[in-house]
């Protein structure tokens, strides 16, 4: 027994020696080759690849028709294309289609297929794949189609090269829905090993670790400049900054201002917009927000600029309705200052509404979105100044989707709402009385009527004007307390260039390249 004890102690000593030796060895290694100083960033430049950090895993179906998370669509934008695709300027250009014609009454869309487009698995894109993809998104046999707007299609006719889509009624925005991904028919593994036609092809996904894409060499258009892109999942904010500094990752989008300021000269910080409508969303049927005066009082009590200055170091664009500035065509600038910051007026409105001494309210915020938590924190102080006691309730994302978004059991919430495609409808339709996603329970007959008119008209100018009236309606009735479109700060390692911002939530890596 004595010997065994001795052996145990010896083993202990040996282990500690081995571990110290391990540490010492690595020191030599670091001084031996200069590579370690920048991680393997230098080596990656040689092989023309980059590592991009992302805060959330793509932990859902990778089938682009079924994926719902903004973070998934953002990354998979590089893999899929539709008949048309968006540009950084907000236009739509032909992709899988070579060109298209729209009839004057805007009910007939004729597409000519581009020749020589192949899927990542090597199969050519045939008309049957295109028809399959569109019909899959338009299928209403199980209730609402995947893309509700496609229910306007009355018929699809095709031969080998041309596709004709006829609509029940004119829809000047219809083209933007045809950015829907073209997928091969009869391919069973789309959810886990997706195949598309984009500039990058999907290689692998390792849960809570990484997603790997490689350049698709048979791409029909301008090929991607990088050979390989690895998306590494780093959910911890401190770890993220250190991973940039250690050289483990080369790029990260959606930095906070604090994170951006921690990075040194090794990085350039690009500033764009997130293309989100961030607001204090109010449940319009919950006490006391069923009273319009109360909602207006809140609008007067909130100083947007102060939120942007305090919580975002001045980065961000104030907004006044459910539209963000990048949508130039639809953005109504004067709505931003419709309610100027005026605590006195807020108190008066509260008194008129029957709350002279204010009230208590709860702001439900998803705990995984720090910008929204920071915004809510400033909101609490601003509301306190007019006598309203607001309390922040942090919930995890799952509970938020369930309680707030689906079951609408909430009083108020801070969140950013994005547009699923480049149409005003994508942002405004949700506030019509019967919309499935009208999570604030906004009920306004005028608003519903304006939406009907906007859908019925074939005249683009008239439709734009109607959408602007809808925005004004939301502002005047203080549907929500609109705050800002968040700034999107992107860190890019020096020596890389070519990143472009889009007016929708995507991360296009096909133009990113090494400068040397």
């Amino acid at each position: 027994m004595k010997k065994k004890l001795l052996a145990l102690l010896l083993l202990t000593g040996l282990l500690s020696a081995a571990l110290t030796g391990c540490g010492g060895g690595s020191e030599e290694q670091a001084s031996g080759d200069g590579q370690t100083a920048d991680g393997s960033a230098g080596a990656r430049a040689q092989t023309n690849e980059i590592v991009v950090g992302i805060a959330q895993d793509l932990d859902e179906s990778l089938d682009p028709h079924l994926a719902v998370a903004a973070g998934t669509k953002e990354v998979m934008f590089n893999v899929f294309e539709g008949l048309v695709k968006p540009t950084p300027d907000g236009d739509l250009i032909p992709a899988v289609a070579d060109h298209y014609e729209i009839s004057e009454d805007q009910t007939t869309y004729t597409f000519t297929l581009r020749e020589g487009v192949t899927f990542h698995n090597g199969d050519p894109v045939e008309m049957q794949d295109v028809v399959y993809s569109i019909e899959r998104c338009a299928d209403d046999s199980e209730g609402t189609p995947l893309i509700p707007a496609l229910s306007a299609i009355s018929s699809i006719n095709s031969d080998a090269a041309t596709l004709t889509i006829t609509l029940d009624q004119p829809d000047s925005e219809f083209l933007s829905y045809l950015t829907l991904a073209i997928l091969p028919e009869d391919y069973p593994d789309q959810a886990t090993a997706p195949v598309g036609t984009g500039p990058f092809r999907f290689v692998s996904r390792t849960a809570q670790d990484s997603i790997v894409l490689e350049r698709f060499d048979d791409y029909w258009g301008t090929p991607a400049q990088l050979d390989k892109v690895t998306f590494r999942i780093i959910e911890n904010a401190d770890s993220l900054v250190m991973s940039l500094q250690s050289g483990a990752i080369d790029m990260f989008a959606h930095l906070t201002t604090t994170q951006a300021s921690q990075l040194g000269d090794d990085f350039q910080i690009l500033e764009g917009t997130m293309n989100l409508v961030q607001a204090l969303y109010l449940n319009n049927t919950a006490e006391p927000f069923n009273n319009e005066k109360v909602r207006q009082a809140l609008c007067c009590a909130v100083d947007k600029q102060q939120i942007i200055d305090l919580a975002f170091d001045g980065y961000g664009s104030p907004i006044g309705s459910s539209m963000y500035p990048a949508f130039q065509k639809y953005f109504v600038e004067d709505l931003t200052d419709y309610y100027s910051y005026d605590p006195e007026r807020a108190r008066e409105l509260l008194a008129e509404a029957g709350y002279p001494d204010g009230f208590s309210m709860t702001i439900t915020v998803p705990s995984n979105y720090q910008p929204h938590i920071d915004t809510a924190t400033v909101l609490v102080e601003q509301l306190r100044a007019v006598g309203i006691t607001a309390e922040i309730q942090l919930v995890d994302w799952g509970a938020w989707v369930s309680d707030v978004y689906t079951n609408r059991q909430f009083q108020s919430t801070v969140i950013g709402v994005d547009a699923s495609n480049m149409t005003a409808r994508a942002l405004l339709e949700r506030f019509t009385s019967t919309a499935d996603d009208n999570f604030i329970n906004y009920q306004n007959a005028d608003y519903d009527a304006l939406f009907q008119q906007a859908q019925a008209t074939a005249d683009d100018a008239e439709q734009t004007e109607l959408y602007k009236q809808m925005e004004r309606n939301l502002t005047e009735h203080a549907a929500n307390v609109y705050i800002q479109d968040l700034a999107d700060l992107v860190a890019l390692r020096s020596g890389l260039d070519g990143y472009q911002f889009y007016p929708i939530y995507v991360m296009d890596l096909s133009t990113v390249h090494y400068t040397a």
Partner: protein
Amino acid sequence: MKYAARRIVMLLVTMVIVSLLAFAAFDLISGSPAEIMLGTQATPERVAELEAQLGLDRPFPVRYAAWLAGFFTGDLGTSYSYSQPVWELVAPKVGVTLCLSLLSFALIAVVSIPLGLWASRRSGGPLDAAGTVIDQFLMAVPPFFTGILLSWVFSITLHWFVHGQFPDLAAEPAGALQYLFFAAVAIAIPRIAMTVRMLRSTIQGEMRKDYVRTAISRGNDRAGVLRHHVLRNALVPVVTFLAQTMAEIVAAGVVVEQVFAIPGLGRLLVASISNRDYPVVQAIVVILAFWVVLAGAAADIANQRIDPRLRLGGAS
């Protein structure tokens, strides 16, 4: 043999209870996997349809029985989030988390036992007082903070490892272990402090006992008594304590994996909980429970080696 059989039955019972508790916990918290999978596209009809598809519309006992049956036949099910077999997702991460836990455990044992012995000799005096303060301080440092600090010093400043670039465990074991070493230090520091304090007080308590006085009065020197008699008695509670530490190592590992961006079970567990990806959560919870219970069994066996009295107690 009878003893081993009883141990195995205990292990199985513990794992079944743990899995039942995890299963039940999900039934209580809000948020259904279907709602999360559909996200902002969730409508009551779609949620109901997906729930039926996933079998979530069945009552709780039926669902649990189905899971248990699958588990005992080696079928852990399919992840809701990844549409992949659970085992495929979990298997590559088991090794990483196992290495991290073992490394942390080794560090704790290797550092704290000699340090505890050393500390027990010097009671009183300024050095001992300083040691107690430092010990108290290290006990209170949370691993995520130590993790950030260690990364800052050893990765950003000294470049001993590349933070955020975990080498593949199978392809580059040396590099991966080196990376894990720093994470293990972050986990180990507070536990080392606790073990040292524990060992110090146990040895000091033991040294005051009658048998020690007898041994010394028979002409043995103090160091000899410590080695031959006291240490063995003092080790029993320490080994038990170290086994309990395994549970804490596993818990701290969940946090430290995130701080060091290590692709282990902990991160997958956290993500799966917030996605309500039950099949993955169940599998990981059972694996971690197995691991902790195994550590307890190992401690019992070790203690029986150290102290024959426990061996008799175990067999009766």
